[in-house]
């Protein structure tokens, strides 16, 4: 068995508005479009994922909240209808996903081995959260790649911020170890928004884009500054000022998904590819990719096949 590798990571935010505006058959409500720039960003991300041909997608979602430990989906197939509790008018989605239980168990065990409280979710009636589903739909609407779903323990909220992010760093390292031992070629998905200040009321027509813009200027400036650092590969500086960003822009990366992903990738100091940026009810949403194959940090599948 070849050594497993993380071949890419995506910052893949999860506003349900993007699913709503795309009108896929799985979603009940119908729209007249909207948020096109973000959906086009995801189109580019989808094309890149197609080229990557991963064996598995791992997604960390801030909307599966678990107070006791880091949980992993542990049922081979999960299906049902996910209704967003905040935007039920936009997101009522029939999901049907396959889980890479073997890798999920390995991730869970590796996390436990380094002292993290971790747990498998084994109940087949479990309803998968809308953050996980939205990110997965937007990146791979075919639903043909097995998934490892990881909960948000929210340690950065409960502990001191630096302690909580340090725990997410450890979870990332555990995830990497499990992937390497599994032989899988994995893509990581951090389901996070950047600036998370949002409007308190919805327009009468949710997809009326004349109403869509950043909720506040300072938050927007923070997003541009942080995206700028990532596009240049200034990863150290990004993580140095991350706590201030979280504090001042109310950034959703506080939930830890982004730190988890970068830790798992080994904090590569490579330029991230910005597929696009857009606001959703005022929040800031970059869709970005770190392609470790292009950067020479992971093996191209063609080389493996040739060997």
């Amino acid at each position: 068995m070849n050594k497993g590798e993380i071949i890419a990571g995506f910052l893949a935010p999860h506003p349900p508005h993007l699913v709503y505006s795309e009108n896929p058959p799985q979603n009940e409500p119908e729209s007249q479009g909207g948020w096109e720039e973000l959906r086009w960003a995801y189109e580019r991300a989808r094309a890149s994922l197609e080229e990557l041909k991963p064996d598995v997608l791992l997604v960390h979602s801030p909307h599966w909240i678990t107070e006791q430990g880091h949980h992993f989906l542990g049922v081979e197939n999960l299906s049902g209808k996910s209704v967003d509790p905040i935007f039920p008018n936009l997101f009522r989605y029939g999901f049907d996903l396959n889980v890479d239980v073997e890798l999920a168990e390995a991730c869970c065990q590796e996390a436990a081995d380094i002292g993290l409280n971790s747990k498998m979710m084994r109940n087949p009636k479990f309803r998968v959260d809308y953050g996980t589903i939205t990110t997965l739909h937007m990146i791979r609407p075919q639903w043909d790649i097995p998934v490892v779903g990881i909960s948000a323990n929210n340690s950065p909220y409960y502990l001191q911020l630096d302690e909580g992010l340090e725990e997410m760093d450890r979870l990332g390292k555990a995830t990497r170890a499990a992937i390497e031992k599994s032989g899988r070629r994995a893509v990581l998905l951090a389901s996070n928004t950047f600036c998370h200040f949002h409007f308190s009321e919805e327009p009468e027509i949710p997809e009326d884009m004349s109403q869509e813009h950043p909720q506040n200027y300072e938050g927007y400036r923070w997003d541009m500054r942080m995206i700028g650092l990532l596009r240049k590969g200034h990863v150290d500086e990004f993580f140095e000022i991350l706590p201030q960003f979280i504090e001042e822009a109310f950034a959703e990366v506080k939930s830890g998904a982004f730190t988890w992903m970068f830790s798992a990738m080994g904090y590569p100091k490579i330029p991230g590819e910005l597929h696009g940026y857009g606001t959703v009810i005022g929040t800031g949403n970059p869709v970005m990719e770190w392609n470790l194959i292009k950067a020479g940090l992971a093996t191209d599948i063609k080389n493996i096949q040739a060997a």
Partner: protein
Amino acid sequence: MTVVSAFMIPGSPLPYVQADNPPWGRLADAMKTAGESLAASKPDAIVVYSTSWFAVLDQLWQTKPHLKGVHVDENWHEYGELPFDIHIDTKLAEVAIQESNDAGIKSKGVNYDQFPIDTGTIVASNFLNPGNKLPLMITSNNLYHDWATTETLGQISAKAADRLGKKIAVVVIGRLSGAFYRHTINISEDKVVSEQDDQWNKKILDLLGQGATDVFLQTCPEYAEKAKVEMGFKHMAFLKGALGEQFQGGKVHAYEPIYGSGAAVIEF
């Protein structure tokens, strides 16, 4: 009198799914006792405010007439499932929505198949309304609402019932001290995480038991901060709003830990 009884209970599923663990079992017994008191007060409907139903954009009110299904808790899935069968007093909810909008708190109903019902509401329904005999009016915890707004929502709920000539029981759902164990514990040895949290909980419960409501209300902000009370103790704000002048303290049926956090069953 519109509000004929009122209760505060914890929203954790553990007393329901693991009642054979002594501390959680005592909470389960207390909630059954509370359910008997509630039934004896003969309300026409039960108004439920749950801190674990999060809303962000508006104040949400459940308006689907019948909710039935099985819920698996996001955190405690290994303990099993939570069945629910709930009827909604849609007329009462519609009036409350109107009253709320009139008061400047933007509100709307939710009437969707498979809309996620929060664990706390299911626990309350199953313990305090066995057999689904009474209809419920369920409203959400808007994360951006403060104590005053939440108290107004309690007032609005009672006012809506009064307009319809209905008697209501009020049930608010939330924890006391909010710190909990992050690691796996021997559940039979569960206790409140810190002595300080325990003392704070006991102090606040003593004030309620003595009927010292003025001191109690003055102490609530400090208590909420020092003991990290779930959602800033807004469940108490809702209850205070609904009871109004009837708020004169409460009888504590049980005070126990739930995985380190403080939990109490209180009858008002």
